[in-house]
């Protein structure tokens, strides 16, 4: 089965991002396909490269980057949600004269059209609130 996933919560506000992560790992293990993970609303905080946490905290950003690398999962961060929260992606960081962008490895920035496309192509769409 083909799944599309949306994540709306930041790593610390609820554990729904981690639930999504576990769901995706389980789905892949059962040979299902995950077409796209779309990070929306507070979910964009999963993608911050420079949020360096204490070692004993849950390292969601690193987990996603690793998952993207190992399983070629498409991790998309919503551009409008990101801009509203000050996350700088490549073009915007340059435009603002910053030394680097905020997006962690394995994530890419794009628009709501990518969410819609994923919901249309998937057999199941699941939102983790």
């Amino acid at each position, binding site marked *: 089965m083909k799944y599309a996933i949306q994540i709306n919560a930041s790593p610390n506000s609820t554990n729904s991002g981690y639930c999504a992560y576990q769901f995706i790992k389980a789905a892949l293990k059962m040979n299902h396909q995950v077409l796209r993970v779309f990070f929306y609303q507070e979910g964009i905080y999963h993608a911050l490269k420079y949020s360096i946490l204490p070692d004993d905290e849950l390292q969601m950003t690193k987990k996603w980057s690793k998952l993207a690398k190992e399983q070629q999962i498409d991790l998309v961060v919503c551009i409008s949600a990101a801009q509203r929260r000050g996350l700088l992606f490549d073009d915007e960081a340059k435009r603002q004269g910053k030394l680097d962008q905020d997006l962690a490895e394995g994530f890419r920035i794009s628009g709501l059209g990518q969410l*819609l496309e994923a919901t249309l192509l998937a057999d199941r769409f699941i939102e983790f609130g």
Partner: protein
Amino acid sequence: MIMKKFLFIMDKPPHKGIELQEKLDVILTAAAFDQKVALLFLDDGVFQLKKGQQPEKQGLKETASIFNALNIYDVNDLYIEVDSLQERGLRPGDLSLPVKEFYRKDVNVLMAGYDIII
């Protein structure tokens, strides 16, 4: 283009940060993709349509103009859970748009008619 039927569940109060604005963005995107879009207002989401709100005074953007523009995007199916409305002391006349009334016991039947429930 694939066509699916989307039912958006509007269950959050209107001025909880920018959550509603971002939900409306998804709704408009789905409509712009020529999908069949309907909205179901329930729980505190029924306040989203209450007339005469002034969120600007609290530093929040108003959403009434987006709701009013939905028909331009061919989003005309606005459902409301009557029980939620009554529990909050509201009547359909207090709302800024005409809505179709649904009782809580029938909401599952409504949902069954949609492909994607967000």
